């Protein structure tokens, strides 16, 4: 028998751990990393599709030059797409945080309300949501999904105008209310994640704070929020991805339009440039959160 080096239990375990994740690692390489690299190459190329294969012709920065300098629509769409992020993400975040906290406490009829609030998770992840928006736009009764119509006769925008708010906040609230259905229906998973996160905060902390005489408001700022920071990061990222990739996003629409016209190179460039910017936004968000994590985590 050869003199093999006897390995400790830790190294044995480390090998097992690697083996557990190995199939997934292969999957990621084949179905994720390679396609991503390929699509980056596409964005620098002119593509022509022949039956069964794709011919790739390297054209350098031509596609990017086209969308950024020769196509004025793209910059507009990009601006609108990024504006969507800054309008929708904070709204969804605050709404789902409020709803999550309200639903987490004990109260009568909690089960009924909770199951009601899980409905968007079940129904609204995709196809039906788009269909509903389309159906309500195209039908003869003209019931649009805007807040002013949906809540009966109350015209919310006129109520808001009466409140004498600064115009930037007013504008924000009006846009948010006009998209209220979309925004609430998109908050499903977020509410689930926030409730799950709230459940992990030990009751002990609240009891101590109560004994020390902290108000509910202080408890929220000094216990709930710091303890939820990791969950909030997950929720923010999830929301960002959802908002960024929804079909109604103007940049996505433009990209799909190019794909439809078999201009895959330009379409890839449209999406890549967009997602690089979005990636920077996400990196900035993660950076800010990591500061908080260091402080609170």
């Amino acid at each position: 028998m050869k003199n093999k080096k006897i390995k400790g239990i830790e190294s044995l375990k480390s090998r097992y751990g690697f083996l557990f994740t190995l199939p997934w690692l292969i999957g990621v390489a084949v179905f994720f990393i390679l396609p991503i690299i390929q699509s980056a190459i596409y964005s620098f190329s002119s593509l022509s599709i022949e039956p069964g294969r794709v011919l790739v012709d390297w054209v350098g920065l031509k596609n990017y030059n086209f969308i950024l300098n020769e196509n004025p629509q793209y910059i507009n769409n990009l601006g609108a797409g990024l504006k969507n992020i800054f309008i929708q993400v904070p709204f969804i975040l605050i709404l789902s945080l409020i709803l999550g906290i309200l639903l987490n406490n004990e109260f009568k009829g909690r089960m009924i309300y909770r199951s009601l609030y899980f409905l968007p998770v079940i129904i609204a992840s995709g196809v039906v949501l788009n269909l509903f928006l389309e159906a309500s736009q195209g039908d003869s009764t003209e019931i649009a999904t805007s807040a002013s119509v949906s809540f009966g006769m109350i015209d919310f925008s006129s109520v808001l105008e009466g409140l004498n708010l600064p115009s930037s906040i007013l504008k924000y609230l009006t846009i948010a209310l006009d998209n209220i259905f979309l925004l609430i229906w998109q908050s499903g998973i977020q509410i689930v994640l926030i409730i799950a996160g709230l459940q992990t905060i030990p009751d002990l902390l609240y009891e101590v704070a109560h004994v020390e005489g902290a108000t509910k408001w202080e408890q929220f700022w000094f216990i709930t929020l710091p303890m939820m920071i990791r969950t909030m990061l997950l929720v923010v990222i999830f929301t960002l991805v959802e908002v960024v990739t929804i079909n109604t996003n103007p940049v996505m629409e433009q990209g799909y339009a190019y794909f439809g016209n078999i201009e895959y190179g330009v379409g890839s460039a449209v999406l890549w440039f967009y997602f690089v910017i979005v990636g920077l936004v996400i990196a900035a968000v993660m950076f800010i959160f990591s500061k908080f994590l260091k402080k609170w985590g």
Partner: protein
Amino acid sequence: MKKFTLPKKIDKHTVKKASYSFGISVFRYLFLSLVGFVILYPLFYMISNSIKSQDDFLNIARIWLPAYWTMDRFKEVWEIAQFGPAFVKTLSIQIVSAAIEVFMCSFAGYGLARYNFKLKKFESVLLILLLLVPIQMYSLSLSVTYRNLGIFDTPFVYYLPSLFGVGVRGGMIIFIYRQFYEGLPKELEEAAFVDGAGPLKTYFKIALPSSGVVILTVSVLSFIWHWNENYIADLCFMSDGRPLASVMAALPTYLQMLGMFLGKPEYPAYVCAACVIYVAIPLVLYAIFQRKFVRSIDRVGITG
């Protein structure tokens, strides 16, 4: 003027507190009901529109309840859109894929949570990337990969990625598993390991039996994400038999054309009827499992 004083036994503090908590609970019911109404509104809207007769649908004054109602639309749209075969496709392709995904993703989640190894940091970064990068970004090259593997236009475009844990939102599913196993006490597994059980045996005999909660959560999510998945299907299925989500996505245009052709201006009502059928199936399942699902969310403890 006589000054109002509180009775001695109930001091000011208690009254303030009681009125405060009363205010909170009023706010809670009001706010939850208002948002709840917004959630239910589209459902009522779809149902009401799909049972209106043609005259009622075209009558602007009839918003909610129809004067004459009809159930024929459900049957008609079922046949026009060929829901039957599409439903079979969804079951045989996407739901099977969801089952595979739920099973296979658990290994990666378990490995990442329980063991320390060299590439763990790297794999965690990969997991975050998988969560973040949307499939739209690399869908064309992905379809080329499928072609090269010879699985394009076969059910394996769902099965194979699921088998490797990168199926529909695989990143999210692995993430939830990882968070769950990190919170699960590991003493039992360590004891089994010391007693000579191999890692796979430990996993199947000890870890898996105690993860019913997370499996239920993940199953519901995976089912619903697969049920609503039409992006890969639209991209990769060239032949006629498409799953339900694909059929639904193409339905408005199709029905609009058909409506013009047949002279039926109420085609959106047919879209609504189709939506009701499409939503009813997961809703029935949800009604059966909701109590367990809602509870299980409490206990999974996703912390991020």
